[in-house]
């Protein structure tokens, strides 16, 4: 059974809070006059956390002053990635999903990572309508949705070690 509260961790890291020289793992942002803000979230791999994950990323992105449509798009894409991690990455078993979001200029980058089974053939997995699900209830459109609702989607995966999906979207005009 999923224990949401127990396994939930979130932190907000910005250059101001960590101070100069200590931000070794905060993503760099070359944008002039723009500090990188980073949010990290760890959730237990269970379906009830999908909504929480997409809402947290949406709240973090709100500092870009996005349109309602941009926020909806982001929530949909994050939901797809987290659902994939729950269903396919961990196959419904226990696990932790790591979400990191950062802002550089007007661009949001969000990475959803699992330490699950991994994807043997990424191009195949990303084909619209392709699914390994046998219940017949999954549309196979998860990656297609991420690509439709975000500007850029990148998938890294290693069989037996896990999958990381990184998505970028320019928001707020």
């Amino acid at each position: 059974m999923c224990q949401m509260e127990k396994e939930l961790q979130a932190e907000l890291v910005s250059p101001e809070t960590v101070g100069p020289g200590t931000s070794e793992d905060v993503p760099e942002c070359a944008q002039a006059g723009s500090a990188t803000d980073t949010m990290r979230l760890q959730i237990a791999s269970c379906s009830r956390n999908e909504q929480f994950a997409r809402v947290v990323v949406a709240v973090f992105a709100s500092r870009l002053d996005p349109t309602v449509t941009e926020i909806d798009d982001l929530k949909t894409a994050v939901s797809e990635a987290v659902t994939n991690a729950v269903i396919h990455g961990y196959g419904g078993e226990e696990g932790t999903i790591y979400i990191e979001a950062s802002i550089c200029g007007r661009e949001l980058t969000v990475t959803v990572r699992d330490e699950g089974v991994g994807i043997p053939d990424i191009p195949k997995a990303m084909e619209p309508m392709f699914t390994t699900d046998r219940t017949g209830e999954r549309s196979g459109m998860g990656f297609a949705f991420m690509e439709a609702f975000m500007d850029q989607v990148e998938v890294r995966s290693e069989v037996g070690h896990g999958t990381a999906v990184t998505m970028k979207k320019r928001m707020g005009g």
Partner: protein
Amino acid sequence: MGEVSFLYEAKGQVLVIHLPKEFDHHNSRDLRYETDLLLSENYVRRMVFDFSRTVFMDSTGIGILLNRYKQMQRSGGTAAIYGANAQIRRVLAVGGVAKLMPQYASKEAALMG
């Protein structure tokens, strides 16, 4: 977060499915089983999906809608949608459901077809 239950409403040969606020993987786990049961026990000619309370849907919803659509098609029935907001309409379009299932503004219109 606890809101999972669907509400089903049978009106003659029409089955109305009132979808949850967040129509995602978590909140739709029982929908397949429940609708299969309803379809086996009732003569349903038309399936109507009520999105009027729904604020979010992802591709999980698309998978479910497409399957129910195919089910209805096989038995010579029809399927329709009403009450979809802008986010839902966008997802329906991207997911290819918009061109398969007619959308209506009101329940009455959707029931009539």
